[in-house]
């Protein structure tokens, strides 16, 4: 089974790329495979290239990719509740990554860890560092996760649904923190989410995924102004908006279920749920075409 097939993504330094799609569409697998963290078995990377500063991560020896993980490329996961090890203090968990990649003493690593905790705006970081994850709130833990990821000033940060598990008010704080830190460190960020609202507020460019494929790619403004793929259009219509002047619009959900990756149609993978489906959608899968400069879509009706 191919969870992810023929996905091409690129992120430039200082850019925030949004990766959107419903759960189960292959966003997380894509993210994990960048750092080769897909559990094997059952998962395996069968082909493709992941190019980072001129090096192909797919073909790098294990020892080399290990030196990149957590140092040049970092990751934040969805569940702050379960992503931190319950039996170590948060300070230890931040310091551990620092000691792994830098030749510093235990003491220095700890001091740096406290410094990083301060940078992710944890109050009283010296005291918090000595606490265990269960003593912290969800938002606090996600800040710790961010601290672990950013401790070594990575060039690329992959944030997999960093706010999904949090309360709405906390979500905004965490996003703001991420944006601020990106600005400060000039790093590239790949923000994975199912929430177009989050994308609209933060990302520069957006990639929409469906059933393990990229179906549309554009800058945020272009995508929201002019969505080309029926799936993207569906996502937008399911998004509540504060609109003044115009008549209130009904919220619409995309009909049908997230497809089973084992039973995909041969043609366009979205065809079974597509409101605009035509005869030609079924036999062959459309290519991802550039419809306008910097805006491509995988749909025969586009353009």
């Amino acid at each position: 089974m191919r969870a992810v097939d023929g996905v091409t993504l690129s992120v430039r330094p200082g850019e925030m790329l949004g990766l959107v799609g419903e759960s189960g569409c292959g966003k997380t697998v894509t993210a994990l495979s960048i750092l080769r963290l897909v559990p094997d078995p059952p998962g395996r990377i069968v082909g493709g290239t992941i190019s980072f500063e001129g090096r192909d991560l797919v073909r790098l020896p294990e020892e080399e990719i290990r030196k990149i993980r957590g140092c040049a490329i970092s990751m934040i996961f969805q569940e702050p509740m379960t992503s931190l090890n319950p039996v170590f203090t948060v300070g230890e968990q931040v310091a551990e990554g620092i000691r792994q990649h830098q030749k510093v003493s235990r003491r220095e690593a700890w001091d740096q860890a406290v410094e990083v905790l301060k940078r992710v705006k944890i109050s009283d970081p010296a005291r918090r560092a000595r606490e265990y994850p269960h003593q912290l709130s969800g938002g606090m833990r996600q800040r710790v996760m961010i601290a672990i990821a950013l401790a070594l000033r990575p060039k690329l940060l992959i944030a997999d649904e960093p706010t999904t598990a949090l309360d709405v008010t906390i979500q905004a704080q965490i996003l703001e923190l991420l944006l601020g830190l990106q600005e400060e460190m000039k790093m590239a960020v790949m923000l994975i989410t199912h929430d177009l609202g989050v994308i609209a507020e933060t990302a520069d460019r957006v990639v929409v995924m469906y059933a393990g494929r990229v179906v549309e790619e554009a800058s945020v403004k272009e995508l929201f102004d002019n969505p080309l793929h029926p799936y993207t259009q569906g996502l937008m219509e399911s998004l509540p908006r504060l609109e003044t002047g115009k008549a209130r619009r009904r919220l619409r959900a995309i009909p049908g279920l997230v497809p089973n990756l084992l039973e995909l149609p041969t043609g366009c993978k979205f065809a079974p749920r597509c409101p605009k489906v035509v005869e030609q959608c079924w036999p062959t899968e459309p290519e991802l075409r550039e419809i306008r400069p910097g805006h491509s879509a995988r749909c025969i009706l586009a353009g």
Partner: protein
Amino acid sequence: MGRYVLSRCRQVVPVLFGVTLITFLLIHVGLGDPVRAMMGQRSDPEIAARIRTEYGLDKPLWNQYTLYMGKLLVGDLGYSYRQRRPVSRVLAERLPATVRLAFAAMVVALLVGGIAGTIAAVRHNTLWDLLIMTLSLLGISTPVFWLGMMLILLFGVWLGWFPISGYGDGGFTHLVLPALTLGALQAGYIARMTRSALLEVLRQEYVQTARAKGLRERVVILKHALRNAILPVLTLAGIGLAELLAGAPLTEMVFAWPGLGRLLVSALGNRDIPVVLGATLLFALIYLGANFLVDLAYAAIDPRVELTKR
């Protein structure tokens, strides 16, 4: 911490009380007349009556019990009928051998079981996994004393590597076979538990976080995963210790190990009631003490456990 120890001690009292009561009743009702057992063939009613008065056996049972408990509170376990000296001294002589054996067996169980279980989990679904799981299944399916006999045959009689019975001068070689025998069953259980706990932990997200930090796989498993997987294993080890102690009499019989277990079996045969009572109590105490240690270890490893609450 101090409060916790105190509250634990308070919990132990009713259990010990229950243990004494059950044993006392069972033994006095069941073991038959200790005086007749002591005197053997010659039955002089006059001497028998004198012995009875001397040991307080002519009093009603409830009276004997309160007397016994009264003395117990000040640490007096009474006199052995057979050895004619304080039970506490008899027990004190035998205790070190049993503690040594049980401790060595538990170390064997934790080391062998822990390492084997870890290898099986890391090499999940390989030949190693299958081999280790088969061996641990055999370990938990073999009667303790029979395993002892087979080890005697193999390493003692045929290969001649280790002495097959007795305590020797207390050296290491005499300890090897009994410890292996007594530890094998628990090693099997611990290997199985370690494997399944580790497999479960390896699926957790914090393991992925550790990998994403760029840690070596060895560190991920030995530090992040094992530290969490050890918690359920510890719980099992606590229960296992009870089973291990229960197996001690059998192992001590097979290897003629001069411990509490053998003392207990022979005291039962001799109708030496005070010794039986004392040894049983001591076994229960060892068990409770060990479980207390397991709880302390649990709290030391898992920061979520607070000792004061419970």
